[in-house]
């Protein structure tokens, strides 16, 4: 049985429907990420699931029993960390024991629990530090310890890494993973950052314009996105302005709309079971890491899409280089640094971009 199950949750602000979720659930020991862009309604959903705001319609079931915002027992089984770690006036220890006081634990037990958690997060030296002396990363870790201290069955996080710099974000992700692993309960992570979702979640629910549009394991979400939005939110690039030429057994051939005579054609696969009739306007999605680059005179390797292009720009992206290509169709490739050197890539260089048929997803255009 799922630990928390949301059914038909609706929340309106004025006339605007900000949350319209038919079903969402998280099981014991599971980490669920709700992934979506800003303005999708994620933070409102966070407050509804955390039972600090009432839904206009629908209900939350905790272990099969309905839980409402005023339900004290249910609230004590949950704890949440907001996007901005709001630390109350006082010391780090005062903050970490807040939830324990709210649950009426004795002083001795509170002290032991606080010491354990601060040690787990490596901030035991900060126990008596006033919270206004903490850095953003430290403050976020204190907020994490504070939420975890009462050992809630379900921990909820709203954009926990949004206000952290790259280094603090990496460290916090590790803390979060350790914190989640050391508790038997479940966690819901609300985030706009696919890196957080893929690093921490067992399942991902993608949210767009107040609705959950796809739920699945990280692998399912990446390999079989249900919509162009899901593909884009997980890091794929979208190519618009194409139309279907032929469609057979899920394999789709498309060409640029408005092309006179035989133009550039690409072959991809359509996630929908229903075949796409010729002439259907479509959007094509691909992942930059699946674009292979070769020089124009390189030998053909198997059957795949070949797109002649010219290097427009090279942008370093961590250990990789993001190569922007111009041509009949503008593409982006993620190439290792040694690949850039081996091919002698520089702006203006002619190349051929290769894309396997299975790496192109074809969706009906909206």
């Amino acid at each position, binding site marked *: 049985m799922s630990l928390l199950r949301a059914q038909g949750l609706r929340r309106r602000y004025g006339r605007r429907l900000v949350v319209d979720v038919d079903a969402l659930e998280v099981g014991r020991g599971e980490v669920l990420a709700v992934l979506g862009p800003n303005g999708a309604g994620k933070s409102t959903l966070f407050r509804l699931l955390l039972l600090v705001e009432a839904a206009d319609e629908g209900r939350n079931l905790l272990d099969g029993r309905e839980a409402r915002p005023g339900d004290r027992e249910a609230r004590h089984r949950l704890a949440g960390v*907001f996007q901005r770690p709001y630390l109350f006036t006082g010391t780090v220890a005062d903050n970490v024991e807040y*939830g324990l006081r709210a649950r009426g634990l004795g002083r001795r037990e509170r002290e032991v629990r606080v010491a354990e958690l601060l040690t787990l997060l490596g901030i035991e030296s900060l126990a008596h530090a006033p919270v206004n002396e903490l850095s953003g990363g430290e403050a976020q870790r204190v907020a994490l310890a504070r939420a975890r201290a009462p050992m809630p069955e379900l921990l909820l996080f709203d954009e926990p890494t949004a206000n952290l710099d790259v280094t603090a974000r990496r460290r916090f992700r590790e803390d979060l993973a350790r914190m989640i692993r050391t508790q038997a309960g479940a966690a819901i992570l609300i985030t706009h950052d696919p890196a957080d979702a893929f690093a921490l979640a067992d399942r991902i629910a993608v949210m767009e314009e107040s609705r959950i549009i796809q739920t699945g394991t990280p692998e399912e979400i990446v390999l079989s996105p249900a919509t162009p939005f899901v593909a884009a939110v997980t890091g794929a690039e979208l190519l618009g302005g194409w139309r279907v030429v032929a469609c057979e057994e899920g394999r789709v051939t498309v060409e640029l709309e408005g092309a006179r005579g035989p133009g550039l054609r690409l072959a991809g696969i359509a996630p929908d079971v229903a075949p796409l009739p010729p002439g259907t306007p479509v959007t094509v999605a691909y992942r930059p890491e699946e674009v292979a680059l070769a020089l124009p005179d390189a030998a053909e390797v198997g059957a795949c899409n070949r797109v002649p292009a010219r290097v427009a720009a090279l942008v370093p992206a961590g250990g990789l280089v993001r190569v922007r290509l111009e041509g009949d169709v503008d593409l982006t490739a993620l190439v290792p640094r040694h690949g850039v050197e081996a091919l002698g890539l520089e702006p203006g260089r002619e190349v051929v971009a290769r894309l396997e048929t299975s790496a192109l997803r074809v969706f009906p255009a909206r």
Partner: protein
Amino acid sequence: MQALREAARLLFELSPELVDIVVRSLRVSGSAVLLGILIGMPIGVAVGLGRFPGRQIAVALIHTGFALPPVVVGLFVYMVLSRSGPLGGLELLFTPTAMIIAQALLAAPYVAGITLAAVQAVPPDVRLQARALGASPMRALWTHMREARLGIGAAVIAGVGAVISEVGAVMMVGGNILGETRVMTTAIVLETRRGNFAVAIALGIVLLAIAFAVNLALTRLQQGRRPGEVGGSAREGKPAR
């Protein structure tokens, strides 16, 4: 100069009459501030955090209370407590209780108005965060008020300021009766009229000293004593180091 020397002598001698006036002043003003807090603070919190129709009018009314002339409050309390007034049967007119009521009505708008601004200045996320950690609505409200403690301290200080040197209202409803309702401010008025400047100056010095001591104590309470804890608002953390 002679009046100043005489005032100093009176202060050192601590005449029983002077002590009696000072003690009564402290009792009346202290009780009035406490009553003003009891009335003003819940109103300030309710209007500051509540969302209801007519809220802006309520805020404007509270702020209008800042400009309430003491003699108007004195007149109102006098009419209510006078023999022919609705509470005339209680026979409170010309008693310290009447003075406390009048001064509390003067202090309450200051306490309410500044409390209102203080609790509003704390982001509502504080209560949500407290609730998210399992706090009851009352505990969450208390946490919110703790975060507003600087402003709430200022509200109490303003309430003290509104009553400690007030003379118009207490004169009207207390009557300045020796040994019963005479307080420092009314005594200063009386002694000045009589030409006893030394006594008036001595009382003025005591009044200022008490006002300073009370405000110093409240300021220490408000600002906290431990270094690094100065500043009452909830923290969101500095940029990551």
